[in-house]
C-alpha cells in the first residue's frame, strides 16, 4: 500500500499545485470582478451611469425658449419655425448654464445660410435652394432676409 503510494506520489504533488492554483484563481476572481457586474447582463452596470454622466454641450431648444421666448414668437409662421436654435447657433449648453458669462458669437450670416441652401443635385428637389450669384449678385443673405423669419421682410 505504502509502496504503491510512493510510485504515484509525484502525481499528487502535481495535482496539489493545480488545485492550489485553481483556488487562488477563484479567490482572486471574486475580489477583482466589479461588484455590479452582471446586474443587467454581461457587463458592469456602472457603465450605464458612466454613459449618462457625460457633460452636455447642446442645451436643447426648450432651454433657449425659457429666456428667448420673443425669438420663438418672431419665428412663428415662418419657414424656419421648425428649425431648432442650435442648428444655426451651435452648441449652447455653456451659455444656457451661465447666460451672462458665456455670450455666444452670432453665426456668420452668409455661411450659416449657404450650408443648407446652396444648390446641390443630391438635395431633395422640393427643398429651397439658392445660388447666391444668380439670386442676389453674391450679396450677403441678411441684406434682404431675416434669419428667424426668412421670407422677404427685413426692415
Amino acid at each position: 500500500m505504502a509502496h504503491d503510494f510512493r510510485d504515484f506520489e509525484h502525481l499528487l504533488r502535481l495535482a496539489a499545485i493545480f488545485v492550489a492554483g485553481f483556488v487562488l484563481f477563484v479567490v482572486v476572481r471574486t475580489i477583482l470582478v466589479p461588484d455590479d457586474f452582471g446586474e443587467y447582463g454581461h457587463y458592469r452596470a456602472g457603465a450605464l451611469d458612466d454613459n449618462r454622466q457625460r457633460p452636455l454641450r447642446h442645451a436643447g431648444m426648450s432651454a433657449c425658449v425659457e429666456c428667448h421666448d420673443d425669438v420663438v414668437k418672431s419665428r412663428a409662421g415662418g419657414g424656419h419655425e421648425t428649425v431648432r436654435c442650435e442648428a444655426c447657433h451651435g452648441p449652447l449648453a455653456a451659455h444656457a448654464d451661465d447666460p451672462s458669462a458665456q455670450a455666444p458669437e452670432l453665426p456668420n450670416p452668409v455661411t450659416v445660410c449657404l450650408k443648407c441652401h446652396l444648390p446641390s443635385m443630391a438635395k431633395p428637389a422640393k427643398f429651397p435652394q439658392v445660388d447666391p450669384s444668380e439670386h442676389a449678385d453674391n450679396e450677403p443673405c441678411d441684406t434682404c432676409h431675416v434669419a428667424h423669419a426668412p421670407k422677404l421682410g427685413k426692415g
Partner: protein
Amino acid sequence: MATDRRDFLINGGRALLVASASAAVALEHVLAGTPEHAPGYTMSEHWWAMTIDIDRCIGCGNCVRACKAENDVPREPFFFRTWVERYHLTADDVDRPVVDSPNGGFEGFKELYRPGDGSKNFYVPKLCNHCAHSPCVQVCPVGATFESPDGVVLVDTTYCLGCRYCVQACPYGCRFIDPRTHTVDKCTLCYHRITQGLTTACCEVCPTDARVLGDLKNPSDPIHAFLREHTIHVLKPQMATGAKVYYADLDGSVR
C-alpha cells in the same frame, strides 16, 4: 515516507482552511453593493430607435458637427460616431453607385455633379444602428460593450481591452478606436441626453427633421405613425442584426 503523506495532508488542510476563509470574505464583498440609478428615469419604460427620412436630408452636415462637439469625438477624418454619405447613381451603371463622404460630411459637400446628367443623387446619414441582436455585443470577449435595457448599445470604456473584435464584427462600420483612450468608441444615441428628456445632438440640430429620435415603447411617440406611413428599410437586413435605425425611402443601392 509515511511522514511525507502526513505532512502533505496537514499542509493541504491548512491551505484549504485559509482559502475557504478568504473566499467567504470575498463572497460577502460581492453580495453587497449595487449601482446607483438615475432618479426619474426608468430604463424598462423605453426602447430607443431612430428614424431617418432620406427625402428630407439635405447633407448640410449639422449632425456630424454637432455629434463631434457634443461627444468630444476626435476631429481627424477617421473617427465618426455619425457621418453622411452622398450617393450618385448614373443611368448606365445601376449596380455601382458612386459614393463619397468627404470628412464624413463634416464640412458639408462640395457640388460635384451637373444638373441634367440623368443621375440620381441623395444623401444618407449613417450611425450606429443599436441592433437588438448586435453582432458587436456578441463578440466582445469581456463584456465591455452591451445593449442597455432600454435598447442602446453602449461601451464601458473602463473595461474595454481595445482588442478591436467588435470593430471587425460591425457590418455597418460604425465603430472606431479612440486614439486617445485606445478603447472603442461609437454612437451612444447621446445616452446622457435621452435619459434626461432631451433628444440626441444630431436630431436636435437637423434643420429638416430628417433624423428623429424615437421611443418604441411610448405609444404616443410619432415613430409609430412614421413607420406605418412610409416605406421602411434597415441597412443590411440579410444580416438579421435587429437594427433599430429605420430609413424611409432608402434606395436599394445603399450599402
